């Protein structure tokens, strides 16, 4: 199929307002995680803090989520090039890996619980559940967005219009954001323990 850019370019702005609005929204969401991780540091410094090793599954899972991001990027490239197979199947991979991430996070919480690190045992474990849970809620939002993108990929004829390109870019920005948010959180947990 031929991919042709139709319709005129937005003339007044270097960056599309919706893209900018999404980046601003991501900044807001990030502040909420900054707050939680800062609270973590303050609470940790106050003592009565149970030190423990994060289950390995959280580390493996980071690879899953990063891979998902890469696949979505690959899918975007395919979309632009007019390579429908690459566009569709990379997106399926990104979507499945996203779901897998949620499942594995759930496994991780189970593993912590089995180790005797339940939600209410110590603030150190409470924080892990809270922060990773709040992050999982954002991933869930991202999966909703990916589901819509997936429907577009399979139900619509592959045509690169300005509108669809923008829509894809918005999906891409949000998914990269929530994925790298997890990388930030994992690095944070690792450094703090």
């Amino acid at each position, binding site marked *: 199929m031929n991919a042709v850019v139709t319709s005129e370019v937005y003339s007044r702005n270097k960056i599309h307002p919706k893209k*900018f*609005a999404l980046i*601003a929204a991501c900044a807001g969401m990030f502040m909420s995680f900054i707050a939680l991780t800062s609270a973590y540091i*303050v609470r940790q410094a106050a003592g009565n803090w149970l030190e423990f090793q994060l289950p390995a599954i959280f580390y493996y899972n980071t690879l899953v989520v990063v891979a998902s991001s890469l696949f979505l990027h690959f899918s975007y490239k395919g979309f632009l090039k007019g390579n429908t197979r690459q566009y569709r199947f990379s997106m399926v991979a990104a979507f499945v890996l996203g779901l897998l991430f949620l499942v594995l996070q759930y496994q991780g919480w189970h593993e912590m619980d089995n180790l005797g690190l339940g939600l209410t045992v110590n603030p150190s474990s409470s924080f892990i559940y809270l922060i990773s849970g709040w992050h999982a809620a954002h991933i869930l939002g991202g999966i909703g967005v990916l589901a819509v993108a997936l429907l577009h990929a399979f139900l619509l004829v592959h045509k690169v219009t300005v509108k669809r390109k923008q829509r894809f870019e918005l999906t891409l920005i949000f998914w990269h954001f929530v994925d790298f948010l997890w990388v930030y959180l994992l690095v944070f947990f690792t450094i703090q323990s």
Partner: protein
Amino acid sequence: MASVATKPIVEQDDLIIEEYGYDDHFHDHHHGDKYQSNFLTTYVFSQDHKIIAKQFLITGMFWAVVGGLMSLVFRLQLGFPEENMAWLKPVLGKWININDGIGTLSPEFYYALVTMHGTIIVFFVLTAGLSGTFSNLLIPLQVGARDMASPFLNMLSYWFFFLAGVIMFLSLFLSTGPFSGGWTAYPPLSALPQASSGSGAGMTLWLLSLVFFVVSVLLGGINYITTVLNLRTKGMTMWRLPLTIWAFFVTAVLGLLSFPVLVSGFLMLMLDRGLGTSFFLSEIYIGGQALDHVGGSPILYQHLFWFLGHPEVYIIILPAMGLVSEVLSVHSRKPIFGYKAMVYSILAIGFLSFIVWAHHMFMSGVNPFISNFFVIFTLIIAVPSAVKVFNWIATLYGGNVRFTSASLFAIGFVSLFISGGLTGIFLGNSAIDIQLHDTYFVVAHFHIVMGVAAFFGMFAGVYQWFPKMYGRFMNETLGKIHFWGTIIGSYAIFWPMHYLGMAGVPRRYYSFDSFDAFKHFAEMNQFITVAAILTFAFQILFVINFFYSIWKGKKMTTKNPWGATTLEWTTPIETGHGNWPGKIPAVQRWAYDYGKDGKDFIAQIEPLAEGESETH
């Protein structure tokens, strides 16, 4: 749209827009019909920023009346504790206890009233009602945009606010009462459902309501920021923006960065309440029983709360400052004094507002060395604030001041901001705060500097832009009566409170009957209560004037009644969807060319005359 027969006069500015403006083909696509096809899409689920602004304003006014009435009830208790309150029984029901025919206000409900008064006025009136109204109305009009970046999110922003309001309103009718632990919702009162009667269902609804409220603020704020940065018209550089827009912009940035922090605090609070975690709860006995919670820190909540809470007071006051700057300049027929200094001071206040939060916590047991840090930054914030005050006074100085209702309220704002701001310098010192914290001195300080002052900014804005909203004027005589009644009344309420505070009278107490040290203040408390009732009556005058003028006010006959330079006055008297009927005006100069080159004012759309320099 069926419009009243306004003369289709072609005015000078229409010609300028036609010649210099640029065509974005907006009216080729019939957007207008999509947005405003029936009653529901025009007035209820509207996506037009001007209608949304009115929705925010009128909802805000409703809440202001509710919040104000609540304060009258608890002021009656403070001023006249011995009086029979049985006459309130039909309204307050079981919250009035009747013993031997004498009705008294129940102490639980007194605390609920204080809590709700704070929550409602801070969030629903002075955040949503002020910033929601004027950011919506003025940002697209003054930057030269057809509407917000996302009209749909803008509509959602209002309806989330509405939903938050409905939930909060419902909580007032719970049999256990609304939340009663103070508007700051400190744990443990907020974290333990069994802590007080309002801590159960009342607190749950309070939290739910505020989460929706935060969603509303964020959706609005993202839109305001994007619109200011991305949708400015041709020629409208950042340095040509009116100060209103600068203020709304920085306000939205503050909201975007601080409200999510509050949400994080709320999440932890919800987990403590529902799932048994111990983020904020340490070892506590309730009813002789030890709870399971171990090792939590209530101070942690205070940090998270005030990280929002302090920027929040600037979220409230910055829009008022922006409105006042604009109104003062227009009505003194002079350029605003020190435009760039005004912008930099808005930015400085915005930045500093993030690093002063712990001055709300000097007495909560934080490390005194840490307090020093916050004392210093708190005192430094007086510098940009003083720059602004100086510039407002310098703008008025030597001006040809027109004393309209709007400009009177703007001048009143400056007066209040000075007298309330000075006491902030007392309170910002952690040593003096040992004596003054949690007294009526604090109550007096923040009511004057961010409560009444912000209301004054809002009133100035309403009187000034009412013609833009409804095509009619508010009654000037009533407006002036409203002004004098309010400014005298407000000082009569809050000035005496400084004396109470210096004598150590604590805030939030239900009654002072059993304190010998405070008994002799009974008459002063009566005076304050009477002043509060009278001041409230003047606000009813405003409400009547507002609604009467919507339908019966004097009609606007020219597009630019105040002789202002900014873009909103180049739109038709009945501004339709898309704001300008033809092209979008291009901007040629800054917003404050008053009295330049012998002309009374030069609109922003007018090109520079030959040989005219843009420097001011």
